[in-house]
């Protein structure tokens, strides 16, 4: 009964979404205050009903209601409660319900936080988000209903959640990622609303900037969490695989990074306006492309597409409609935009443009590599290929290094033009110092490091040096706005990730060994002794737990990797044991048992691997900090005053 309530709540919220779309857009077009006021109220209603529906599904998981097909397929009575909770978004249907919940949440945020916006503009934004939610809800209800019943053949026991997903990472990673994906729908809706209203001044850029930044910060966090989860949970120490699923989240991130930079120019200089609009549309379209296509399985194979033709078809039509209509609107409206841009090559505008070009090229590069197997299969009538990791590295790495080189110049640049003397005066010594440090430090502290590491370190010091110098300069003048600090921290994060990626990729040591109990070996500077394997049991699995005594520069510690066998699915999983550290991780995983008590063992020493995610955290933090800037609050106060003044005049 309660389950049917959840289903009903979804149907009702579909009605709400449709009303929001109509009231918001019509109300704004005809300037009817009543309709527009109703839109905001409807948004609250929509959120309540979707939250209710989400709550019902969660409840069904917590009480093991296996009459619900989705619960039966993804849970089990033995599943620990926190994983029952996160299993709600552990597979297709539920994760899409989470997506919709987050979409409703962002709409609510716009309804509440966007009160300072002109009402017609806010109503349009909500209306556009309403249209999107109609599409999402229809998709969920008609092709992926999470409340479908298994009656009368209710199983006594559930099939259990995929063991890989029984982990803290799955509790936090999808919500963060979706907050980012869906958050870009706000920037998209702002862009479409601006196009609809025809008011394409710098104001909308200022309005949408905080939203784009926050969405970007969430996506950054989501991707970093995903990478960290893959690292420790997949069991073999990889942190990025250029897998289609990863690329799907990475492409909107690249476009979104371009967007938040381009928005800065649009807000501050009033230029790049049509480009920024296009980026807002592109970023969300890539979110849709990514999330939908991954969910439908189109990317893994053309044939997976045929497995569920309705889902795939729905997705394609929806994507085509969203992209097609927004681009048509864009083409119709932006022809009238004229911008008097005058800036030289040595200006902040030019370098932000370069930033955008590089990010979009890298995005296109990843897109090509991701979709190429699909195109190839279609074009050659079924010949199958895969695009190797070297392809992605070959193109992506140089672009990012180029980006890093340009980023080092950024803090010194003025808008419009920068005198050569200022460039040389401020950057000359930074360039010298970064070469000395970047080459010198590794030569003093380590043995052979490889030229790739040297190049990356020089560039990282280049970024750090020029930013630090600019920070000191500004601090002396006493002008350190919060937005500026946000930029500093985010750029610092980029440098940190760069260092982590380069050092981990080049200097990691990995050994696959055959070890019998009592045997010892040396891996890098770590000595490893295999004590033996013991049988242990968890709540819903049995495991062989290895015991390894490690000695590393005088420090002694024990690592206990496991080979788990989950009962419900009879599936085997590798649970690595990690000794984490800021400058290196020691990582052990058990392969398969061999004869006479010996095991296949993988031992890895991964220097600076944590820096990859630390940099991600810094980037996300910087992105959020930038939004806290007082100038966005000033805007509110000013508008509140204007509204008050208008109201006073009216009486």
């Amino acid at each position: 009964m309660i389950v049917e309530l959840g289903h009903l709540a979804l149907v009702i919220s579909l009605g709400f979404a449709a009303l929001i779309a109509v009231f918001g857009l019509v109300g704004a077009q005809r300037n009817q205050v009543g309709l527009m006021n109703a839109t905001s109220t409807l948004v609250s209603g929509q959120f309540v009903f979707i939250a209710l529906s989400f709550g019902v599904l969660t409840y069904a998981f917590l009480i093991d209601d296996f009459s619900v097909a989705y619960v039966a397929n993804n849970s089990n009575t033995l599943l620990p409660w926190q994983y029952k909770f996160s299993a709600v978004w552990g597979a297709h249907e539920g994760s899409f319900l989470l997506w919709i919940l987050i979409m409703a949440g962002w709409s609510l945020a716009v309804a509440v936080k966007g009160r300072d916006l002109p009402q017609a503009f806010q109503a349009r934004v909500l209306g556009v988000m309403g249209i999107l939610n109609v599409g999402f809800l229809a998709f969920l209800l008609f092709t992926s209903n999470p409340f479908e019943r298994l009656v009368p053949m209710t199983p006594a026991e559930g099939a259990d959640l995929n063991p890989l997903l029984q982990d803290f990472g799955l509790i936090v990673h999808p919500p963060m990622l979706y907050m980012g994906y869906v958050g870009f729908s706000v920037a998209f809706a702002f862009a479409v609303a601006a196009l609809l209203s025809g008011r394409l001044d710098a104001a909308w850029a200022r309005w949408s900037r905080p939203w784009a930044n926050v969405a970007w910060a969430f996506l950054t966090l989501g991707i970093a969490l995903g990478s960290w989860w893959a690292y420790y949970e997949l069991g073999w120490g990889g942190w990025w695989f250029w897998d289609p699923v990863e690329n799907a989240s990475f492409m909107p991130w690249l476009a979104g990074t371009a967007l938040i930079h381009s928005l800065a120019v649009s807000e501050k200089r009033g230029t790049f306006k049509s480009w920024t609009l296009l980026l807002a549309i592109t970023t969300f379209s890539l979110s849709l492309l990514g999330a939908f296509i991954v969910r439908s399985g189109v990317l893994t194979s053309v044939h997976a597409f045929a497995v569920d033709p309705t889902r795939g078809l729905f997705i394609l039509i929806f994507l085509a409609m969203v992209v097609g209509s927004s681009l048509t609107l864009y083409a119709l409206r932006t022809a009238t935009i004229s911008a008097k841009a005058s800036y030289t090559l040595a200006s902040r505008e030019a370098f932000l443009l370069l930033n955008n070009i590089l990010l979009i090229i890298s995005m296109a590069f990843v897109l090509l590599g991701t979709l190429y197997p699909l195109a190839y299969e279609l074009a050659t009538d079924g010949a199958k290929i895969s695009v190797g990791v070297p392809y992605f590295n070959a193109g992506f790495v140089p672009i990012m290094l180029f980006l890093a080189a340009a980023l080092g110049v950024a803090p010194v640049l003025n808008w419009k033009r920068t005198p050569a003397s200022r460039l040389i005066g401020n950057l000359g010594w930074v360039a010298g110092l970064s070469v000395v440090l970047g080459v010198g430090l590794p030569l003093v502290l380590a043995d052979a490091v490889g030229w790739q590491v040297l190049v990356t370190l020089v560039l990282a010091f280049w970024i750090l040096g020029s930013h630090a110098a600019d920070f000191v300069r500004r601090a002396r003048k006493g002008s350190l706005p919060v937005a500026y600090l946000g930029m500093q921290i985010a750029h610092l994060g980029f440098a940190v990730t760069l260092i982590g990626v380069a050092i981990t990729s080049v200097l990691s040591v990995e050994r696959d060994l055959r070890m019998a109990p009592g045997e010892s070996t040396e891996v890098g500077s770590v000595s490893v002794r295999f004590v033996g394997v013991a049988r242990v049991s968890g709540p819903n699995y049995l495991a062989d737990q290895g015991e390894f005594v490690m000695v590393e520069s005088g420090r002694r510690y024990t690592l206990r990797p496991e080979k788990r066998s989950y009962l419900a699915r009879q599936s085997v999983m590798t649970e690595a044991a990690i000794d984490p550290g800021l400058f290196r991780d020691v990582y052990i995983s058990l392969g398969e048992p061999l004869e006479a008590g010996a095991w296949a063992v993988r031992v890895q020493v991964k220097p600076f691997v944590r820096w990859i995610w630390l940099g991600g955290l810094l980037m996300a933090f910087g992105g959020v900090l930038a939004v806290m800037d007082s100038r966005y609050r000033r805007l509110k106060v000013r508008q509140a005053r204007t509204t008050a003044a208008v109201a006073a005049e009216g009486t």
Partner: protein
Amino acid sequence: MNPKRRTRLIIVLFLLVGAGVSVTLVLLALNENINMFYPPEAVVAGEAPVGAQIRAGGMVLEDSVARDPESLAVSFVLTDYVDSEFTVRYSGILPDLFREGQGIIVQGAIDADGVFQASQVLAKHDENYMPPELADMSPGHQKQPNPLNYDR
């Protein structure tokens, strides 16, 4: 030419050269890093090139997995359960879902003796998952070996 136009020209030239170079590099990179996929039938028939990096796949034949007692070297036979099978040699840790009767993909090259020297053995982490290249061979998850079906 006035300074404004000259700046524009420089930018346009810069973009053109940049675009040309990148497109060339991208196509080269794509060309070098595509791994064609071959089913057992094609490997046995000699359609798969010798020495080139390729992917091949099939079902792990029952009782064909042989471990070297001294090292991590292993060999096994991949079959399509019709009439084609070939031997794979690999050294290292096999994935968790590597089992006899399971569909897997190997990446590597065929040596002069017709043995597939694998650098990577892939089996995804979900037992319901079928590597896309093998999807044609058997529909969905299967514990029992089925005769493979090449019809599309």
